């Protein structure tokens, strides 16, 4: 479940300490844009130590490393991989070759420190070339778990003007969702830039969900609850999913093959979707932690 992926600057210990508790499904420790060149070393050490010292519970941990066309990314990985983050986010992912290089390096480092499960890759698509290559990127490695749209850099690369409504990224959103789903992975939407525009955020998140995204990045913790709500199943969706599962059970009892609910045939994709909705609802419910 990656409804919300919260960016945290890799050089801010107070925010890192609070990060796991803010309600985001994933947190992304940033070693790239949030960290000035002079602080790259310090941030790398800080994030490495935070991964070792903090407890993340059910929260997924992602580290955005520096781009593969810089001399920094390998040193980032050498520091971070032994701490076993869930995902590595390579910025400016523009072709499948980059992902394969990253995959290879991850494999070497994992073997060297005997990690028991492979670290996933979350390519950040934020160039026109990356967008056009997005299916190839998504299928370049079995480590890829999702494609992640970065609209700020992308619109700059496209020469488009970034707006609250997001008309300029409609093609990119649709393209990215199609590539991700075709590759069998998730699609994560770009963060909404307006810090205090909560109504616009709500519309933007609803739009992203309607286009097929499974979650959205946030750069301000105050956006988390709204984005979580947008990507959570509604009560009506949960009720329908429960009815689907009940109808399946009922049909099984009666030995029926074809099932209909509310006058519509229930086929495998509908059942699969109902299962996902219910699993997600259970996960969101949470309940007692200890």
């Amino acid at each position, binding site marked *: 479940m990656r409804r919300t992926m919260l960016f945290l600057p890799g050089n801010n210990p107070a925010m890192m300490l*609070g990060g796991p*508790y*803010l309600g985001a499904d994933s947190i992304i420790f940033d070693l790239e844009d949030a960290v000035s060149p002079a602080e790259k070393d310090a941030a790398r050490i800080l994030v490495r130590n935070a991964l070792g*010292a903090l407890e993340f519970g059910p929260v997924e941990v992602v580290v955005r490393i520096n781009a593969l066309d810089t001399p920094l990314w390998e040193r980032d990985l050498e520091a971070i991989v032994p701490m076993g983050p869930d995902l590595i986010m390579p910025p400016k992912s523009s072709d499948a070759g980059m992902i394969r290089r990253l995959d290879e390096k991850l494999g070497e480092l994992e073997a060297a420190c005997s990690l028991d499960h492979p670290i996933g890759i979350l390519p950040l698509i934020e160039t026109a070339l990356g967008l056009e290559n997005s299916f190839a990127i998504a299928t370049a490695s079995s480590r890829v778990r999702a494609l992640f749209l970065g609209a700020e850099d992308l619109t700059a690369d496209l020469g488009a003007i970034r707006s609250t409504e997001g008309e300029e990224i409609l093609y990119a959103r649709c393209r990215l969702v199609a590539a991700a789903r075709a590759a069998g992975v998730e699609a994560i939407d770009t963060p909404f830039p307006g810090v205090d525009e909560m109504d616009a955020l709500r519309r933007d998140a609803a739009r992203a969900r309607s286009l097929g995204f499974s979650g959205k990045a946030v750069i301000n*913790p105050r956006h988390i*609850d709204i984005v979580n709500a947008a990507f959570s199943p509604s009560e009506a969706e949960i009720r329908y999913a429960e009815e689907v599962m009940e109808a399946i059970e009922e049909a099984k009892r009666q030995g029926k093959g074809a099932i209909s609910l509310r006058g519509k045939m229930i086929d495998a994709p509908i059942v699969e979707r109902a299962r996902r909705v219910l699993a997600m609802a259970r996960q969101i419910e*949470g309940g*007692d932690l*200890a």
Partner: protein
Amino acid sequence: MNKLLGSIEEAVRACGLRDGMTISFHHHLRGGDYVLNLVMEAIAAQGIHDLTINASAIQDGHGPLGAHIRNKVVTGIEANFIGPVIGRVISEGHLERPVIFRTHGGRASDIDDGTSHIDVAFIAAPSADERGNCNGILGPSACGSLGYAMPDARHADKVVVITDNLMPYPLSPISISEADVDYVVRVDKIGDPAGIATGSTKLTRDPVALRIASQASRVIEASGLLRDGFSFQTGAGGASLAVAGMLTETMVAGKIHGSYALGGTTGYLVDMLEAGCFEKLLDVQCFDLKAIASLRENPRHVEISASQYAGPKSKSCAADGLDVVLLGATQIDTDFNVNVHTDSNGRIIGGSGGHSDVAACAKLTIIVAPLSRARLPIVVDHVLTTSTPGDTVDVLVTQAGVAVNPKRGDLIERLRAAKLPLVSIESLRELAERQCGVPRPAALSDRVVGRVLYRDGKVIDTIYGVQ
């Protein structure tokens, strides 16, 4: 009859103040108060010693009091709160007799029934007339409510009103009446407006505090107490104020009409009053300019005395009817005992104020606190000082989950049904210790420097000096 005297010195003489007596002050001018310092300077100049100060609070603007303590002008202090500046002087053992800490309600009741005797009350008044009628809502040093000074005015042997805004007789509205006042003194300034009230209390942007606030407001919603007739008190800390903002949205959207909000008031409670969340604000103290203006202008915003606020020996008090109260904590332990008196080094940095009063009275007492502050765990095995006993605390809300006092099984069921992230308080303590480590115990001396009286007058804890 001429009550108007030319100086504080003259008033001290006129009251017959002598060695060994008890004088009192209120803290409505908060960090901006000049009056305690002016009065103590005048008293010291007359060679008087061995006084006890009974004040609703000693604030950090009262630094000069440290010298009077060292010179034995002041040998005893009774207060509901003592800020870190004088707290340090006391913790280092300079005050001759141990401080007596009370609660806001306990102090008022003890003055009302004569348990605490005050020889002379010095009352800072933002506005007064020459016969001593006074209020806190007019004048350049306006502070709002004068609730904490009311028991002193009623019961002290001598009452001196000190003002920087002398108005024609009869002044109104009347918070403290001429019937109780012996002398009036006009001074240039009773306080620094910047320290008396903040311009506007700002909502925190700290994401952890906001997270705690949103969980706390979910606890209130799930408690079953948020319904028509709801009554509420909240502290002025970041997370507590944020809850007020969140509750406003919930109450307005749900068309819930509460009865009253109580205690220290801020612009956030004023917003709730004006949005129709409450019928009345019962105000014992104002924290910001918006609250002061509202008390001045809105008849539904009512000034009350400390006795009416939370006096345990009052025939009744407003705290008795509270549904929900939100409070902070310097430390909270796994028995839900709360410390708001001493810091991790054992130094005095605060006091109960109304904390333990309203915790005892409210149907639901919620503590909002982060797991750690400045690399120190807040949830601990044993608090250094018990300010508020754990059996009056129902819920602790931290960023890492909500812990319910096990004796509140009913509440646990309600919060579980609302899918709140429930955790045991022990697991929060363990998590805080894993994050911060376990601090070395504070190095304390054998010398008792303070006694904490619970609202019923019994000693609930003893404070030792620091080494």
